[in-house]
């Protein structure tokens, strides 16, 4: 058994505690009647933030200034193009996924090409890229809303053994991410790069290769999330990725990843994603209006980061 003292030093424990508290507060109001429904909804909606958040987390690990702002546009483009290609045919599910992944790869290549070729901060590179990707999505979409193939629509909206399928997909991807981060040489590399790029280079780490793979990974995860989200919500919408820009950053940092880079963790993404969904649903349950709900959301984000962030050092 891990002692509590040991546990309390894990940066991700705070996001889990916060998520649990909000979950508890919500089911108290409803008298426990909605426990299962709330938990399933939380897992379903959190799954998308988790998939996107993991990609963003790898990028943020690379150090100050590394953030992928093209995430929402990539989600939208991948969802739109995949649904268009599949054209409601169940046989096209795999090609659709492949196309989504290809779009992710293309955006990732584009992002890193800009960062490298123009030597610009990733924020600006991915921002510029996102404009182009978003335009491509608008052009492909043309206001048409194509439904997903029925297999996919069913898969994304149903559960296996009470656990939503999308949450299971997120779990699988999280396990892969965890192995990459904690066990692999690549995980060491990106952590080293995040702490000091100069030192990483002199230690013989292939800095460009590692960074390139990271941006690829982030874009591919975003496109997979877009593919799933488009199927889940019954069609791709042009603004479907919008909320995931701030969300992906928020879950990474609330989850205990150092914004200054060099340290990150996967479990925190889960805690933070569940928390972010549960906050909104709790405030909805209390019947609170949009303005107050926004203010409360903001204050809670700040309180959580104050609880968790003050315990860490080495951040800027």
């Amino acid at each position, binding site marked *: 058994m891990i002692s509590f003292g040991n546990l309390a030093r894990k940066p991700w424990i705070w996001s889990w505690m916060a998520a649990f508290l909000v979950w508890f507060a919500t089911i108290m109001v409803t008298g426990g009647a909605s426990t299962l429904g709330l938990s399933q909804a939380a897992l379903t909606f959190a799954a998308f933030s988790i998939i996107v958040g993991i990609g963003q987390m790898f990028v943020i690990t690379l150090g100050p200034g590394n953030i992928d702002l093209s995430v929402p546009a990539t989600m939208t483009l991948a969802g739109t193009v995949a649904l268009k290609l599949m054209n409601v045919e169940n046989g096209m599910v795999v090609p659709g996924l492949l196309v989504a992944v290809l779009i992710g790869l293309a955006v990732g290549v584009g992002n890193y090409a800009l960062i490298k070729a123009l030597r610009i901060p990733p924020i600006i590179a991915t921002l510029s890229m996102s404009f182009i990707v978003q335009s491509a999505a608008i052009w492909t979409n043309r206001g048409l809303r194509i439904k997903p193939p029925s297999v996919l629509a069913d898969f994304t909206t149903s559960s296996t053994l009470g656990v939503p399928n999308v949450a299971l997909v997120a779990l699988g991807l999280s396990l892969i991410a965890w*192995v990459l981060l904690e*066990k*692999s*040489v*690549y995980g*060491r590399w990106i*952590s*080293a790069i995040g*702490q*000091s790029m*100069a*030192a*990483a*280079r*002199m*230690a*013989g*780490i*292939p*800095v*460009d*290769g590692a960074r*390139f793979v990271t941006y690829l990974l982030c874009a591919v995860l975003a496109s997979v999330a877009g593919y799933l989200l488009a199927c889940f919500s019954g069609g791709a919408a042009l603004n479907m990725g919008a909320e995931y820009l701030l969300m992906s950053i928020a879950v990474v940092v609330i989850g205990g990843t*150092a914004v200054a880079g*060099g*340290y990150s963790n996967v479990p925190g993404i889960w805690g933070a994603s569940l928390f972010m969904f549960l906050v909104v649903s709790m405030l909805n349950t209390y019947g609170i209006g949009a303005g107050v709900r926004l203010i409360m959301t903001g204050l809670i984000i700040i309180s959580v980061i104050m609880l968790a962030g003050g315990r860490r050092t*080495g951040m800027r």
Partner: protein
Amino acid sequence: MAKDMKKAVIEVDGARVSFGAVKALDGVTLSVMPGECIGLVGHNGAGKSTLVNVINGGLTPQQGTVASDGERLDRYNITIARGRGMRCVFQELSLCPNLSIVENTRIMHHELGGFGWRAKAAKVIETSLDAVFPGHNIDSGQPVGDLSIAERQMVEIAMAFSDAGIAPRLVILDEPTSSLDASLARQMLDHVRRFVASGGSVIFISHILHEILETSDRIVVMKDGRVVAERPATEFDHQRLVEAMGSVAKEEAFQRSARELAAAPVVLRHQADGIPFTARQGEIIGLAGLAGHGQTELLLALHAVQSNAWWPRRDPLVTFVAGDRRLNGIFELWSILRNFSIASLADLSQGGVVRTAEEAERGADWKRRIEIRTQDVDNGILSLSGGNQQKVLFARALATRAPVILMDDPMRGVDVGTKQEVYEIIRQEAAKGRTFIWYSTEMDEVRLCDRVYVFRERVITAELVGDEVNEINIIAASFGGVAA
């Protein structure tokens, strides 16, 4: 003035400071009189830096008192210290790189406010630079980030001696010459003597013992948070100082055994302007010359040519030991073990996954071989003293299979004992056929090398082999036609 002469500028009495279980200062008493230069020596971790921090007001001792001019100061802090004319040059460079020299002067001198402060600040810093380093070529409008390391150090020293209303009375110099070449160091030491002669006080910390011996009036030796010896400088010599520090270092520099390496295979070549650079198997090659004349650039170029930024090399030819630990050496968030193993992960992994058991084993092995002083290699790297961090960087490089090791003046600010241990390891590894390319600013280290390239103005101007490697030849080559 006559009355002040009797009273100490600063008087620390029975100061105790602990960081957790570590006693950094264990009852230290020290007083500095006006017109006196105190040499402060000791191993890394002897408590010098902590004592400096107590004197400059950055740290309040848990026990003991601080007094100045015979007046006990119960509430003592950085601001009060500065108001009393205490100045400090720290071991690490501490200017703001984004600001110009003039703007840095403004930051350092509170009293420089109001309209026209730029002109005032420029005058203050230029006067001081001219006084300490006559003939310097530094424009005070330049951003500090555009300066070389030596120039930054010069600005830093001049800043401490500058007077913008509150005259400096006690200047603490913590390894001030570490980035300076011999002639700049000479200018600085001469200025210290002038400053002291005019009634100022200096606390001078250096590992270069002859600097301490010839510049100080009184030498204070620290060990394990205590003062273990305190005598006039005339009563010390090199050997006694080393003995007083408790170092096991041999007093004579290593005598090079005559090694015939001209027939050994060449492992590395580099052609730029000047004499071509070649490195043979098993050689220890020194890069000498005045500081900042292109030695580091050669090392970086050798490293860049041999490494690939996109794909890991299974059998790297070169590995690198950094001189500037904080900038391109250690990974601050990591444990000692991870810092050690990062360069040899290719050997410690299978299918991209790190074999942690093997990693720990190799870490424990090297901890023993190179005597890294820690309880546990899983402790954070920052828990180590600077010298031990440097040892970890050596272990990192030596543990790779790379046959060529590039060293970028890695002994900067490392204590004598650690140096001797590392020299021994370098000799052993070279005997096994490894090649060391070693940039050093210290003559004693250059003399350890089989072959030395001397740099001047970013070009290799001389190649010295065997018995040619001596101080006269190196200085002659460094200064070219100018009489040295």
